[in-house]
């Protein structure tokens, strides 16, 4: 080990102390702060940093002690802190079309100026791009591979229009081995398969806990809203496979169960229950949550946060590595619109919702194209109304508050009428 300057040692000690301190309290904000501090000081502590897509197989990274960093999570932070529009404009001045994904646009711009709420992400040592969420990430990661001049691993999960073909399984499974070889080369050490097994177990346990947390909102009144889920989601995305996630969601689950037992709802007077579809409108979550609450409407569930626990049925507890192939390939956004509609219908039933709010998200074509068809299927099969909000997850220029507000009022009138309130 190289001799580290004193200031560095001091810094590391401080992070450790902070981490220890927060281990007891386990607040999301602090956990994320420590996580980003660790990631940003990786160069000093000699650890590698990988940028990885939100739906990518992170477990091998955790097992190799590589710090995973999520540009999409970063994009959400940029959006939530209302810094997205500036960065999007910056990317447009770099030549990127304003029609492109705003996570990608803000991240690409942010990398060049180290802007945003945390002063940019730490420089990657490698890029892991899994295209199970979209084709956009491929192009985005190619941009970053050129910019940072670091190796790019593409984990190609063929789209499953109908079912899951055996040749897809073969292809994806063989890429898992290629992925491990890639990591071994990038890290200069062998993968410890026992460790990977342990990480896999933790990952599955974390996903099941997250599923259980989300399921508590099937109760009426719902102990938390989808807006809370958007917040608590950060851990299952970024740190799945670590014990931290288990501790955090175990506590959260207990808290929610307790609220259910005592009949405490997330909003003061839950009268109407709604389902959310698509990525949140990050800069407007608070406004939207207050707007809906003013109608006594609670967003009890969503198709977005459940995507990180939607494929547990494909995971073999005792053979996590092999079964990962199917689990990562069959996630919510990598399946046909009709199968998505079936999942939405299941959620409508499970959460007993009175209506659906769909965010038609200019940034996300695989999520948004097909929503009109899902809307029609839900209206036909369950007879509940769907509201379509045209917006964007980060770029506020695509959001018209007065228009959305009027449409929500009109939508809630319909729901109230139908429920005979």
């Amino acid at each position: 080990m190289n001799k580290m300057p004193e200031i560095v040692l001091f810094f590391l000690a401080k992070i450790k102390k902070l981490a220890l301190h927060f281990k007891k309290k386990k607040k999301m904000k602090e956990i994320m702060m420590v996580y980003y501090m660790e990631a940003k000081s990786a160069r000093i502590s000699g650890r590698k940093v990988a940028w990885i897509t939100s739906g990518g197989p992170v477990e091998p990274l955790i097992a190799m002690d590589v710090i995973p960093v999520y540009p999409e999570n970063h994009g959400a932070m940029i959006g939530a802190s209302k810094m997205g529009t500036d960065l999007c404009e910056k990317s447009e001045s770099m030549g990127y079309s304003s029609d492109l994904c705003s996570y990608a646009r803000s991240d690409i711009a942010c990398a060049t100026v180290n802007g945003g709420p945390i002063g940019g992400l730490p420089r990657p040592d490698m890029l892991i791009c899994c295209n199970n969420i979209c084709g956009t990430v491929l192009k985005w990661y190619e941009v970053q591979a050129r910019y940072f001049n670091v190796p790019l691993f593409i984990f190609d999960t063929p789209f499953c229009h109908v079912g899951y073909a055996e040749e897809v399984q073969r292809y994806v499974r063989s890429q898992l081995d290629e992925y491990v070889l890639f990591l071994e080369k990038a890290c200069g050490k062998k993968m410890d398969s026992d460790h990977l097994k342990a990480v896999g177990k933790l990952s599955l346990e974390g996903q099941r806990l997250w599923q259980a947390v989300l399921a508590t909102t099937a109760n009426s009144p719902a102990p938390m809203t989808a807006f809370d889920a958007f917040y608590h989601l950060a851990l299952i995305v970024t740190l799945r496979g670590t014990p931290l996630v288990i501790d955090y969601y175990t506590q959260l689950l207990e808290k929610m169960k307790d609220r259910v037992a005592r009949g405490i709802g997330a909003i003061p007077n839950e009268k109407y229950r709604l389902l959310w579809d698509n990525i949140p409108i990050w800069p407007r979550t608070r406004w939207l949550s207050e707007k809906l609450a003013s109608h006594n409407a609670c967003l009890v569930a969503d198709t977005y946060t459940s995507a990180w626990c939607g494929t547990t049925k494909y995971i073999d507890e005792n053979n996590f590595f092999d079964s990962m192939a199917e689990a990562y390939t069959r996630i919510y956004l990598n399946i046909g619109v009709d199968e998505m509609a079936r999942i939405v219908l299941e959620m409508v039933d499970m959460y007993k919702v009175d209506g659906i709010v769909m965010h038609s998200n200019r940034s996300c074509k695989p999520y948004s194209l097909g929503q009109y068809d899902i809307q029609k299927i839900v209206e036909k099969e369950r007879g509940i109304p769907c509201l379509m909000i045209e917006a964007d997850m980060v770029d506020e220029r695509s959001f018209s508050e007065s228009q959305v507000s009027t449409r929500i009022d009109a939508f809630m009138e319909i729901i109230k009428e139908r429920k005979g309130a």
Partner: protein
Amino acid sequence: MKEADEFHAILKDPVSYGRKMKEQGRKIVGYFCSYTPEEIIYAAGAHPFRIFASGENIHFADAHFQSYCCSLVRGALEGALAGNLDFLDGAVFPHTCDSIQRLSDIWRMNVKGPFHADIVLPVKLDTESARSYMIDVLRKFRKDLASHLRVEITDDMLKNAIGTFNTIRRSLKRLYELKAENPGIISGRDVYAIVKASMMMDRDHLTEALPAVIGELEKKKGNAELYAGKRIVLAGGICNHPDIYRIIEDAGAVVVWDDFCTGSRYFEESVKDNADPMAAIAGRYIERPVCPAKHAGIFTRGENLLKIAKEKDARGVVFLFLKFCDPHAFDYPYMKEFLDREGIPSMMLEVEDQLPSEGQLRTRFETFVDML
């Protein structure tokens, strides 16, 4: 030139052409994009017919697609929902971008044709496992198509089909070369019509029609006048606007090559001789210049464009994109930078169904051409 007339006629009314073939008892399989293994469709005795946007006003597709979906996807669905594609015995969707991916779902759920095939090719083309997966996918398509059409597709039939399509590709390439060597001998509009209609025309007839065109041009080239226009290359996805060529020519330039899905990417590279025809077809997709929705390396598309521009002695490049085409829009800044570094000027034009007004286009092209 008059040999191009029949190509123009098909482009003008592809629906009538398709229906007429259907009346003659042909099985017609519609397809999207240049990654469709037309050889397999042809070997099955069916006619591969490329689907483009209907170019009509949108009545039906807006109920399925938001405003930020590209005009190709919207217009293709419109054509199907309006009943214009009733002559199809099936539709084939190679997986490329996020929008085509969803088009396939929405088509399957709403158009409900007799045969719907997704060819989910790998997204990366630069690994061995991707190659063997691609071969698997092609084999499966061969099997599915054969069983749907109730025919047998033998290796010999496939080899014969490969021969036919290699001939077509070689002819189209020769056409481009003749144009690049003697830009004055054929108009850009004619070249455009010939290449695009080749994706719809009866292929047996095409193998006679193309040599006729080329024969004429070979005769003409000796006494062709030296063309003085500035040489430019077009780059992008698909081009639906023949007028562009005329406006460019009016502005004092000439298109000498392109990097289009409806252009050179359609005909570049031959399928090599191989005992396994599926492996041979896969090999061509891996070798040929890629669509930006595929990955063959992080610099390949920029390098390819630069190579084209240099080889064809182009003075400038015009990027022509469909609005809302994400893969192309992501590659644009770095490809432009590649050109900038070599001192090759470029301009970018983003279009939807309708071109901007002719006056506006003329001004933009004239300004650009003056700069070259």
